[in-house]
């Protein structure tokens, strides 16, 4: 089973098992990765599973669809390599995939 790496908002690095076919969001949720909220459970409806993908991995992922682009545009502090982890599906060749979890997932201003 591939392993993937999450860097939690506090800087803690967690390497966890990622079953092929699962979404990266599901992997995060099962392992209780801090900072991944994932309210909608993968419907691309909440933008609370936002991650920053490591440079060497970004281009190896399936490209974003329009819905995800629109969600990310106004997610918390989007960057060039932002993705919604619910839209990243684990493949065998993603062994070692590394993503960083942003400080927040909130959409509305506080």
């Amino acid at each position: 089973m591939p392993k993937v790496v999450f860097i939690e908002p506090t800087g803690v690095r967690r390497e966890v098992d990622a079953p092929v076919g699962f979404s990266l969001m599901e992997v995060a949720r099962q392992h209780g990765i801090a900072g991944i909220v994932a309210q909608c459970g993968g419907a691309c409806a909440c933008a609370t599973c936002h991650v920053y993908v490591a440079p060497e991995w970004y281009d190896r992922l399936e490209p974003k669809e329009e819905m995800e682009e629109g969600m990310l545009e106004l997610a918390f502090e989007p960057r060039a390599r932002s993705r919604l982890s619910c839209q990243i599906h684990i493949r065998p060749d993603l062994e070692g995939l590394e993503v960083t979890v942003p400080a927040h997932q909130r959409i509305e201003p506080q």
Partner: protein
Amino acid sequence: MISSILILGGGQAGAQAIDTLRRQGYEGRIVLVGDEPHLPYQRPPLSKKYLAGELDADRLPFKHRTYYEEHRVELELGIAATRIDRASRTVTLADGRTLSYDRLLLALGAGSRTLSTPGSDLPGVHYLRAIADVGPIRAGLTSGARVVVIGGGYIGLETAATARHLGCAVTVIEMADRLMARVVASSVSEYFAHEHRTQGVKVICNSRVVRIEREPGADAHAMRGLRVVCADGSTYEADVLVVGVGAVPNSALAAEAGLECENGIRVDRYCRTSDECIFAAGDCTHHPSVHFETQLRLESVDNAFEQSKSAALNMLGRATVHDRIPWFWSDQYDNKLLIVGLSQGFDQQVLRGDPATRSFSVCYLKGRELIAVEAVNHSSDYMAARRMIAERACPVIEKLADPHVPLKETV
């Protein structure tokens, strides 16, 4: 000192409370009681991918069993709570055992509203709410099977879309004059009616079901072969009949314990019931909306999640006001409907874009303030609206009506 927290209900709200309590450093006892035999799981896929057979059952739970072991959560699953004794701060379970609590969270959810028309108790009349409901429905969704859905709301329409996807001959019967009439604008209703009809679904509005009977010639014990009779005399034969006519809050246990209930369990903005040791969260509550200055009962993932989070913090004595703008979504075929805010009491509706392009939104204004947006296949309008509604933004109407101006730039 709080050392024992008892959670009744194993849905979104129950699961979230555990997460928040442990992340906040609460070290005391947590017991979760759920009347279904499953680990706390996600309900939204039940009418979508799980019904379609495209998502395995092991992907429904929020967390695996090991999480609960590692976080020292005692799970009492497959057993109902039957009584709350507020004086002794105990809850009695169906097998007679009692559990004590310092703080109690009622995360009891809602149940399907049932039909009372004659014949609605016949075998083969299905409701869709829990994992156990899905199997018998899915078994009938074979290619060519005649599926009748009573109720053109979220659950009914998602079920219809899934059944059509599986090759069934689908009819949706709605009592109101349009689909999802309680929750969306008529332009959105029309769009979805068109989508369903294009996919081959027979959509019948303005039709009231008066009777369900066995199809002549059908085996008396068979689960199949029902006939739905409407007020105008029209009839629809069904191999599978699914009813989705709304939900009712599970508040009986609370009411029997003398807690204030009215269209759900009454809670304040701190998610506290009329008993200061008892909190409630999710679909079972009737709660204040701080932003909209009204009382709400919501059937929504976001509300269950956020209310439960607030309730958990308040149970630990960390005063937290539940103040959220509600949002909802629905998936039907390749369409995603995203709704944020509450449109009730609006003064003006503004259409952004052309439904014929399959991507548009409807904005609602009260006075000049944006109060709700329904976005069809338009995630950027939806995301912008989540912020703008919270900020009480007042968009310029001319800009709002121009789909080429991004929503966030209409202020």
